[in-house]
């Protein structure tokens, strides 16, 4: 079941990583309200992942930063294609977007998981990519991984094993 993975690539907050190596696994650990976006071409053995922190930039932030859904999704698509992915064969999965904080006392955290998820979905639609699987929302954090070798995306919660997302 588990393929031989030689290269585990962590994708930290606001990072975007693309690899063209069948032995690689992209891994976003402890996603809370952040959304992990995985995009891959299994045949070309190319995969990428973005760790989106916020829906869109504020006035005084760098709009091109991959921490924003508005920048991360188009950039992820661009880099995966540049690395050899065929647009027609691309598959996508997303995970995260939990509402970790229960009270909506603060404006910026209010519903942030949901807002991140919808911003990512909106950008994917704009890019013409339909996610094959998603595990978003809820109250608790999860980790998200993509194995480039077999194009399998999986999610793990506290005290649970990895659950495959795509059939």
């Amino acid at each position: 079941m588990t393929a031989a993975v030689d290269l585990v690539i962590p994708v930290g907050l606001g990072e975007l990583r693309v690899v063209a190596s069948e032995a690689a696994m992209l891994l976003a650990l402890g996603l809370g309200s952040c959304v992990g976006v995985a995009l891959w071409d299994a045949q070309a053995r190319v995969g990428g992942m973005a760790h989106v922190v916020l829906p869109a930039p504020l006035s005084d932030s760098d709009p091109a930063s991959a921490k924003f859904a508005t920048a991360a999704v188009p950039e992820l698509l661009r880099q995966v294609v540049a690395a050899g992915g065929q647009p027609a064969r691309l598959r996508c999965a997303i995970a995260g977007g939990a509402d970790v904080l229960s009270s909506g006392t603060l404006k910026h955290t209010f519903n942030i998981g949901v807002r991140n998820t919808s911003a990512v979905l909106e950008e994917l639609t704009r890019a013409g990519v339909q996610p094959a699987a998603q595990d978003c929302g809820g109250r608790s954090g999860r980790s998200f991984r993509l194995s480039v070798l077999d194009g399998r995306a999986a999610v793990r919660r506290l005290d649970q094993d990895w659950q495959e997302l795509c059939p």
Partner: protein
Amino acid sequence: MQARLLPIESVFNRFPRMVRDLARQDGKAIAFVLEGGETGLDRSVIDEIGDPLLHLLRNAVDHGVETPAERLAAGKPAEARAVLSARQAENRIIISVEDDGRGVEPQRMRDAAVRKRLLTAGAASCYIAAVRSGSAELGLIVDGLIGEQEVVIKPMTGMVGRTAGVAGTTILGDRRVSIIVDVPKVVEWLARGAVGGAHAARAARCGRDSVMSELPSAVLPLSPQETARLHVLCDAAVENISHGLTEMFGATMRVTALNVRSVPLSQAGNLLGDPELEVIGIYLAAQGAFSAHLLLLLELPVARQLCDILLEQPPDATQALSDLDLSALAEMGNIAGSFFLNSLAENLDRRIMVTPPEVLHDMAGAAIATVLLDVAAATDAAIVIDAGIEHEGRRLPAWFLTFPQPDDLQELLRTPAEGAR
């Protein structure tokens, strides 16, 4: 006391035969000598010491001593000599196992350690000092090993009095001054993820397929003056917390071990070493004229320990965390956090609103990222002020993280120091 003393012979006497049998098995010739058999030792020690000695001797015969052919080739007599001796030196008994074999060859040990993946090839060319703090044991890569000696530690004073990671100094026999590493502090840094190894250790302990990743660096975009100023401000704030906690809970509880650093956003989830670490978090935010986010993170066992203390239960009484436990933790976080945030804001002569405490039970990375959102919108690095908790002199590993809004932090740093006001 005398009545419990027995001659160590009673243990020693089992070994000659064992050594002879082992030597014969391995095709080695060994003259085995016992010395000081009459040395008196407490009966309880006599009972315990047999097995360790057996291991040492077996080691000497199996690995230390060469075959007669090897010995002759090395210019030694064919028959090896092994001595097991005991002697009294003041209030100690010294028991030694000696042999004239090839001993431990550092290079062979290193090769074996690299083969077994205990060391990387790079580290194997260095010397490693094994250190311990609490239950944590680790190896420090050092330039060389000189020896071991008991010293009197003198605290450092003045300008260098607060050097992190240095416990103090001592004057050596030859009058040279030596600086002493604060091992518990180094272990704590590792545990907090300041260096990569702890992450691997934690991942290994959790039995998870977590990855080694780059960990938060200690690069500070603050000038040394600003860092020092922030330290002073935070120290004062921490004093306030300790008063608050002690008043509220009657227990001598303090927030200690303050540390100020800057962490790249991408690494913020790793602040505790493992983003998947299961934690209880208590979150507060300061709003208004000074904006900051504060998160107190506790590993589950520590959260339970704290509940025992806060609710005056006997140790280990708290198991699954009840609503009452969670509200006790929330209250503690509320007091500690409010005192801290208010104290920082007072420097700006500003009043702030602190949100009600919110308790999270989640992965560390998920909690930190969510709390960081506000800061993350504007910058790619967060200034993190982290501190631990101490109860009646005992350290409870906890992470008391504060993420000030960058603009407000800058303003705070421009406030004049106490004397200048």
